């Protein structure tokens, strides 16, 4: 399908990109990898008057790993994350989740910032950002602001990002080496949208119990979110088959998944519970 007509600009500074977006008065869109925006345009789900291509902004393409955590520039591609050996230990949950993103060719183009801005309910990166309490740094005409990932996503394909704002970077908090984690998702075909997915981690306290449990869900919801009811079922308890089952049932009860032609709400709810069991079994190993 052919794209609708639009104006095109490839600015060489962030400031220029922001002012081009602002000049579009809500009808200009930032173009990063284009792996979600261009199909949306092919289907006429999006018809921006202008695309502001971010390809020349090398400052958006950096991955920084330090004691404070990992910072991923908005222009970092899935491929860059896969190729960065540091992230496998610095952010293992992120690295595991990114393996599930689409296909080889898409992973060579798709970006962190694009996925966050697009906010597909089944997308891995938004789910990881929410689960890991990441912060999203955005730049607009009035300057920068930092948005907690938990407050960024408002619904399917909806975020609190303003039309004239650009995602600059996502900061993932530091990851203790002994943290336990698991990621599971199920799609009907390899690389396809997840019917449901679970990202989870917890730390172990001096008594051997789970603490700081984080459980995030994608696919079986309108936007990625944590599930405190299921987290509560694990905090302060030893993670074993009994507590895993309790957490999974609490998760199922808490979810309100959508129904569509790919899966019913009941199927998605049950699937999410099963995936949480598997993710926690992986974590507890």
């Amino acid at each position, binding site marked *: 399908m052919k794209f609708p007509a*639009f104006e095109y600009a*490839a600015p060489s500074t962030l400031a220029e990109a922001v002012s081009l977006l602002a000049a579009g008065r809500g009808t200009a869109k930032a173009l990063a990898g284009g792996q979600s925006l*261009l199909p949306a345009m092919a289907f006429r789900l999006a018809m921006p008057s202008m695309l502001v291509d971010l390809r020349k902004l090398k400052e958006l393409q950096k991955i920084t790993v330090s004691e404070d955590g990992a910072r991923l520039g908005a222009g970092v591609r899935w491929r860059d994350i896969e190729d960065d050996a540091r992230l496998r230990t610095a952010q293992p949950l992120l690295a595991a989740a990114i393996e599930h993103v689409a296909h080889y060719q898409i992973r060579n*183009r798709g970006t962190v910032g694009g996925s966050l801005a697009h906010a597909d309910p089944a997308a891995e990166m938004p789910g990881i950002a929410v689960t890991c309490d990441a912060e999203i740094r955005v730049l607009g005409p009035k300057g920068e602001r930092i948005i907690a990932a938990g407050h960024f996503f408002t619904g399917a394909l909806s975020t609190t990002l303003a039309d004239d704002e650009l995602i600059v970077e996502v900061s993932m908090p530091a990851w203790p080496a002994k943290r336990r984690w698991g990621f599971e998702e199920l799609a009907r075909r390899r690389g396809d949208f997840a019917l449901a997915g679970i990202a989870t981690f917890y730390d172990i306290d001096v008594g051997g119990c789970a603490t700081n449990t984080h459980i995030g869900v994608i696919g079986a919801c309108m936007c990625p979110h944590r599930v405190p009811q299921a987290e509560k079922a694990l905090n302060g308890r030893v993670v074993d088959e009994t507590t895993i089952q309790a957490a999974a049932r609490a998760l199922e009860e808490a979810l309100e998944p959508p129904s569509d032609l790919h899966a019913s709400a009941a199927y998605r709810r049950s699937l999410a519970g099963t995936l949480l069991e598997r993710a926690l079994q992986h974590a507890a190993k």
Partner: protein
Amino acid sequence: MRVQFELNGKPVEVDALPRTHLADCIRHQLMQTGTHVGCEHGVCGACTVIVDGAAVRSCLILAVQVEGSKVTTVEGLSRDDDLTPLQKAFRKHHALQCGFCTPGMITTAHALLTEEPDADRDRIREVLSGNICRCTGYVNIIEAVYEAREAYRSGVGK
């Protein structure tokens, strides 16, 4: 907009509308019709080309975005005198029937084996999962790519 890039080793310059995707630019403006357009929304993989070493879907990249890049299509992965090792393997294993998906399979496999000549069958299967074939059932394609690894290991892939 004027766009300059390198196509199969030769510099080219075209006047492309911003809305023109790379596949249409290559096929209609540069008359290289080896790149096939299947779904045109990033699902089928038939239009895969190699941009600066990376296999990408040419229906999901604008022609104006490849300014200054090196683009390789299936035409750039053949020789005049003989079949390439990948082509020979596809022929030997009957890895195609109608041939529509083949350019995307060849470009994807070439990008993969260039970077990962030791890719095992699982890795090949995983990478080719982004390319749809309606004829072969995939097994023969995977076998062909697996066999071509040897040539890439010894540096005579292309």
